[in-house]
């Protein structure tokens, strides 16, 4: 898309924000015991308050209630949606996305508030609004937009009984993007799996990474005073010598500090991912990943032994294992 096309497209989709997708949808069936029973059988929820009249009457609920998570069920379109889906604003919006190449759709997350229990006889009506469309996002699945709809559920008295936020990603699947096409042109049709971010290499650090590629963990040593230093620097802060060589590390050390990385998760990295400041026997420290252990087994002071190994198609790194 050219910047102009993108602008026109975004103007088109943003015009939908704030609009109701259609007239409020009254559920085809009132809340009823048969559908409740089908639902609890399928989900395996055996709570008697949903099906056992005698039990429910004596419980704090004072009678049968519908499982709260059925909230959305009561106003769903039913089987007809597979045949002749109603053309509401939401589908119209999705078609605009489709026409511009954003053919992928992924339900990403939903959150629901429940205001009161629903009981047999209640009539549920859904009122859905297109609440928000995000900025253009680059995701692991491809470039796209998050569309958020908010549905308000009301009962036969017009009172609110619940609210649901539903978020989908409409995206241009990665293999369809120009970049992805270019990178896979002539190669196998499967895109290469993502790799870790590569260390940029320059004057002062490339030699260290080249040694890693050869399976060696090196430590820079000042030729003037013999001080070891990491990360490498062009001058010794102790004696100001710019002459240096390097020694190969024994790869023995201990955990000086560590963290388990949870969020955000970056493509190309394995999670759970443990990262540590490793104190090497030689005296310098470095950042590296811990491997071969569970997060709860790690402690400050734990003895570790390193292994320089290939972790993906492009990356060789030192990993440290419990010694």
């Amino acid at each position, binding site marked *: 898309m050219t910047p102009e096309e993108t602008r026109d497209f975004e103007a088109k989709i943003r015009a939908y924000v704030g609009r109701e997708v259609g007239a409020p949808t009254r559920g085809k069936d009132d809340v009823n015991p048969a559908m409740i029973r089908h639902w609890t059988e399928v989900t395996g929820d055996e709570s008697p308050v949903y099906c056992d009249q005698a039990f429910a009457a004596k419980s704090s609920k004072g009678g049968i209630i519908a499982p709260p998570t059925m909230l959305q069920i009561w106003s769903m379109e039913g089987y007809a949606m597979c045949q002749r889906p109603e053309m509401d604003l939401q589908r119209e919006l999705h078609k605009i996305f489709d026409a511009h190449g954003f053919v992928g759709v992924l339900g990403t997350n939903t959150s629901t508030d429940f205001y009161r229990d629903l009981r047999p006889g209640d009539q549920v009506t859904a009122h859905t609004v297109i609440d928000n469309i995000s900025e253009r996002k680059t995701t692991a699945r491809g470039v796209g937009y998050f569309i958020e709809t908010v549905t308000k559920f009301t009962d036969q008295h017009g009172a609110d009984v619940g609210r649901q936020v539903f978020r989908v990603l409409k995206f241009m699947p990665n293999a369809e993007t120009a970049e992805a096409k270019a990178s896979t042109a002539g190669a196998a049709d499967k895109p290469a799996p993502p790799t870790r971010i590569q260390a940029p290499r320059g004057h002062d650090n490339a030699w260290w990474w080249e040694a890693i590629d050869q399976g060696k963990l090196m430590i820079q040593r000042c030729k003037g005073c013999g001080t070891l230093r990491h990360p490498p620097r062009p001058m010794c802060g102790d004696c100001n010598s710019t002459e240096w060589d390097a020694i190969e590390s024994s790869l023995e050390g201990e955990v000086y*500090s560590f963290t388990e*990385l949870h969020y955000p998760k970056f493509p190309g990295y394995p999670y759970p991912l443990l990262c540590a400041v490793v104190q090497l026997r030689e005296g310098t420290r470095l950042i590296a990943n811990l491997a071969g252990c569970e997060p709860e087994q790690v402690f400050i002071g734990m003895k570790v032994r390193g292994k320089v190994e290939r972790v993906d198609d492009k990356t060789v790194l030192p990993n440290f294992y419990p010694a």
Partner: protein
Amino acid sequence: MAARISDKAAIVGIGATEFSKDSGRSELALAAEAVKKALDDAGLKPADVDGMVTFTIDQNEEVDVARAVGCGDLKLYSRVPYGGGAATGTLLQAAMAVATGVAETVVCYRALNGRSGQRYSSGVSGNLITGSAIHYSWYMPFGLLTPASWVAMFTQRYMHLTGCSRDALFEVAQATRAYAVNNPAAFFYQRPFTREEYDTAKKICEPLRLYDCCQESDGGCAVVVTTPERAKHLKQPGVLIRGVAQCAARGQEEMTSFYREEIARIPEMDLAADEAYAQCGLSAKDIDAAVIYDAFTPIVLWQLESWGFCKYGEAADFVKDGNLRPGGRLPTNTHGGQLSEAYIHGVNGIVEAVRLVRGTSVNQPNKPVAHALVTSGVGVPTGGAILGRMG
């Protein structure tokens, strides 16, 4: 010997935009609005401004802001590096200029679309915000990409050495949230939270969970600095810069000083505290309230130690005793901090520190505030300022 800069400059105006998750406008628009509001607050005209200071990572050029607001000739434009570490460093630049006559009226500003635009939590991958790619080469391949991950590494060791538990981190989060609940400008206005919500929130990097991390916000803040003589004739009572320092310490890296003798300490902040106190002859006992940079909960603890409110390793007990609360020894982050008001890189903190001295915070402590402390980001070269009333 300490710098002779105490009481040579005063803050006479403060301004802020609304804080949001999607400002819907440019960062330049935010900067211009914040600067104009600060000038209006001071009763000054744009033409009175002859100096502008911001952060190196701010995207708004000084001359662009000057042109947008209608300022005239500038004699000072200057920027301070290292992310949030720059916050009070802008005051140092302004105070030095005012004290030496390089400029008479300097605006310090910071404006960002920190949520709808470039988010710092998205890490250093691909799109480096500051610093050299070579520096981050030691961290990126290992997945240590975000500010939270770097701070987690220091936190884990600090907790190991001092016995500090998550109870203390929670108290920092809870205290700032309790202030934000009363502040209409805060993201968490009227939204208190419980220990259970704190403990069950999304894990970020061990031991940090979501509510140990600050907001990501859109917004802008500005303050106006001028001479104490001129301050006497302006709309608001001037707030003196009693002491101000910015420091980098031996072995410093930007956020990744993992190679020092001990990493569970922030020697650059110790230096800044010593220098700022020495400039004005004050000490911790003279500070009545504080705005302590809170990008993450644990960093508040370390700064309390640096500034002498308690000894090393005692900050957990200090906060658990309620000292950050309205009636405590040191009411702290009374606007809700960056954890609960907004993340404007510490400049909303300078604005709040000025309010504390003026007596106009929405959570004004129930005691006279003769001196307020405000600090800059942690893990980077940093600093702090001590603000006080004009005599």
